[in-house]
């Protein structure tokens, strides 16, 4: 784009088309054409400036200045949206945000560089055989924020309330679900430092209720991959144009010293019972993870990852410091037409648990040597109303075992492997619009659920995200 002084353009514009007199001069003619184009462009800019001035007087000057200085028809053209509409936050060089297209709004701009988003989930679980255990729960309400420091640097955070009320005498929790500073090093890779989500599985990083089928998150990605699983540390991520995404990190890991052999938690979710969530996390031993996904064919996602680290954390009183956790995972998601098919398998091992379990002899929950889970799920967007509403029935089959094997113990005192749990879930997500989902499902358990203390159940739920 040529750079011409604004004054010259205005002068030429006032002079009209005088050069036409030399119509026989081809060179001149071309020049006139160029000038004409420029005048039209400048007219456009002037119109925009006028429009901006009319809408948001305060922001006019800098916006106009940038537009003129770059002289390019920069993407940033319209000034702030009316207050009621939702505008984009802007990187410092972007002169203005723009109202969102149509529906599916996401986020709320708070000033030029900060935005808020959120999601929430309310559920109703009714066991078919023990109605007294029926519960209605505001499972979670989350507020997320994002602040842009400069073009390459931003902070992301999510604050979560679980079970509606959190106090010392209530059962709810308030927690920071993620909080990290991200610095983009190049257009296609960057670094994050802080409390980051472990990029394993389909659910952990994308756990908003609209993204998964069923009222509750699947069991495999809560019992084996303890979503929402986050660790403190440094992560690097990137992607290629061919559709390959990668994410590697180093940071905190679980704390095996926190294992409670007398409680059920370790059987409900081995890693869920010892992950630290950056709450005064014991951090002598660093863990590492690496994950990759290929999405080069739209509608197809193939991926996997591994998380590993020693998890003794230097505990001097327990024989835990030789123990290493390895958790691997592979997944597939395929969305042909109205169908949405996914499958995931994950398996974890904890090494050198024999001495620790000897101290837990006879206890109900020793540390497992291995645990695993997998599921297949098919969903079908069967009905649609307009472009926003849809109904998607789904069926999911899960198998998982949180104590698939235990280290050997003296004769007769070892712990037998737990039976493999199998759960069928049949249900439907009804999207009132892409941001609001109503859910219904029925879950059939092979065994009573350890945590819930009952078997089959019927669930209703509401989820939203913005």
């Amino acid at each position: 784009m040529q750079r011409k002084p604004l004054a010259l353009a205005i002068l030429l514009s006032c002079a009209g088309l005088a050069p036409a007199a030399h119509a026989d001069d081809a060179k001149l003619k071309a020049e006139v054409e160029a000038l004409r184009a420029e005048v039209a462009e400048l007219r456009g800019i002037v119109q925009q400036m006028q429009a901006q001035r009319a809408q948001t007087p305060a922001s006019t000057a800098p916006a106009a200045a940038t537009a003129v200085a770059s002289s390019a028809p920069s993407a940033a053209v319209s000034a702030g949206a009316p207050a009621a509409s939702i505008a984009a936050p802007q990187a410092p060089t972007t002169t203005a945000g723009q109202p969102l297209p149509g529906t599916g709004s996401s986020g709320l701009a708070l000033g030029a560089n900060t935005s808020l988003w959120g999601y929430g989930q309310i559920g109703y679980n009714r066991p078919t055989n023990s109605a007294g255990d029926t519960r209605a729960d505001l499972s979670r309400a989350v507020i997320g924020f994002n602040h842009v420091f400069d073009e390459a640097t931003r902070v992301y955070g999510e604050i979560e309330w679980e079970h509606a009320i959190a106090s010392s005498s209530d059962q709810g929790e308030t927690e920071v679900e993620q909080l990290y500073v991200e610095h983009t090093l190049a257009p296609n890779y960057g670094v994050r430092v802080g409390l980051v989500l472990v990029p394993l599985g389909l659910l952990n990083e994308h756990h908003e209720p609209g993204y998964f089928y069923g009222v509750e998150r699947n069991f495999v990605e809560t019992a084996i991959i303890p979503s929402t699983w986050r660790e403190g540390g440094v992560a690097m991520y990137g992607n290629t144009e061919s559709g390959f995404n990668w994410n590697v990190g180093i940071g905190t890991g679980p704390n095996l010293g926190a294992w409670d052999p007398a409680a059920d938690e370790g059987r409900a979710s081995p890693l869920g019972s010892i992950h630290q969530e950056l709450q005064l996390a014991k951090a002598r031993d660093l863990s590492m993870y690496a994950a990759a996904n290929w999405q080069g064919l739209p509608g197809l996602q193939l991926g996997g990852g591994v998380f590993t680290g020693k998890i003794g954390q230097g505990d001097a009183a327990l024989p835990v410091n030789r123990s290493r956790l390895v958790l691997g995972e592979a997944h597939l998601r395929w969305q042909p037409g109205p169908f949405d098919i996914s499958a995931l398998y994950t398996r974890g091992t904890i090494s050198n648990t024999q001495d620790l379990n000897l101290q837990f002899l006879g206890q109900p929950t020793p540390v497992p040597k291995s645990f695993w889970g997998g599921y297949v799920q098919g969903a079908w967007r069967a009905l649609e109303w307009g472009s926003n509403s849809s109904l998607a029935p789904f069926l999911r089959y899960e198998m998982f075992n949180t104590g698939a094997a235990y280290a050997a113990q003296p004769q007769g005192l070892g712990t037998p492997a737990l039976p493999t749990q199998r759960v069928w879930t049949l249900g439907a997500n009804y999207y009132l619009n892409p941001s609001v989902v109503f859910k219904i499902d029925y879950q059939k358990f092979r065994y009573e659920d350890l945590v819930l203390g009952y078997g089959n159940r019927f669930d209703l739920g509401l989820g939203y995200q913005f």
Partner: protein
Amino acid sequence: MPIFRSAPRAHALSVLPDVACSQPVSAAATRSGRGRWTFFVVALALIGSASTVAASPSTSALADLGRKIFADESLSASGRMSCATCHDPKFAHAQNNALAVQPGGANLDVPGFRAVPSLRYLNVDLPFFFAGDGTPTGGFNRDGSANTLIEQASRPFLAAHEMANGDAAGVVDKLGRASYADEFRGLFGGDVFARIDDAFLAARYALAVYEATAPELRPFSSKFDLFLKGKVKLGAQELRGFAWFNSPAKGGCAGCHPSTRASNGEPPLFTDYTYDNLGVPRNAKIPATADPDYFDFGLCGPDRSDLAARRDLCGAFKVPTLRNVATRKVVFHNGQFTSLREAIEFYVQRDTNPGKWYPLGADGAVRKFDDVPAPLARNVNTGEVPYNRRPGQAPALSELEIDDVVAFLGTLTDGYDAATDTADPARDLAQP
């Protein structure tokens, strides 16, 4: 830090009334009352480290004094009874005879009411409180009636069936003539014995510091401790007993006597500091039981008075640590059993074979839970392992398994010597 904030004064004793004054304040300021003791411990730490506080007694000086008071028989009306008489250090600071209750008083002929607990491994930072789910927890004495060691130390000095001094003046008078009286004055001021309440408080304070800090009261020197550190292996029978002890399908003992480390990171203490109602049979060897209307209800009285209205708590006593339990000469709050094996048999056979443990009533039927009036029998724990059984069912532990558990409990005795595979709590006392 109110205790010794008046450091400019010549001697520390002048601040002792502050201790008394501060107690209600801090108790009111903390919901569970726990803060009071924390506060005390912090104060101790400060005392120990703050060289600027002139004339403040050091922790070790206080503990040394406390140790002397603990062993001083001259502080009793009889002149023959000290704390250590009942809490014999050689027997893990518990009684050294198999009497259900110890005799006290001026002539050592007044019988007591409860068996002597071990003073080892007390949780010094846990006043009595009701946990979030209503579970009574913590406190000192078998009924949790004292919130601090200082508070607890009054009764043995004064009670007619113990050292029988009657009042503080009686104690202080004897302290003034003790061999360590000068040491006492040096710590608390030359005129300390002229001020009865201050001196009595100071003596109990020294005792409390001793009980809270003396290494011989928390030696962690058992075979089990060495096993946890990976230094010795448990034998096959001990391991089996450990498994039965822990297993909810067997003894389920670890439910109240946790064998995993405490929340403060200490090695396991084998008590969760809660209270339970076991329905232990009435012990006729306690003279007070001659009166058919006499009942020791623990939490709800009669010794403890503040929970008298909580009839649901009648019969509940504190869960003791099982460390050194094999050295106990009598077991349970009323000293009903004189062997550990018998006590374990009672646990697992109480409900499967009640006739073995309880007398027959006038109607010829077994009078189960005979140490509480019939209406309160429902307070007895019958829901948890190993009690949840009926007559005729197999006990939670077989005879062989009981032997295993006894063997395991033997590993909890302090003063383990690997060379001989024996343990003796007296070995922890090898110090000045």
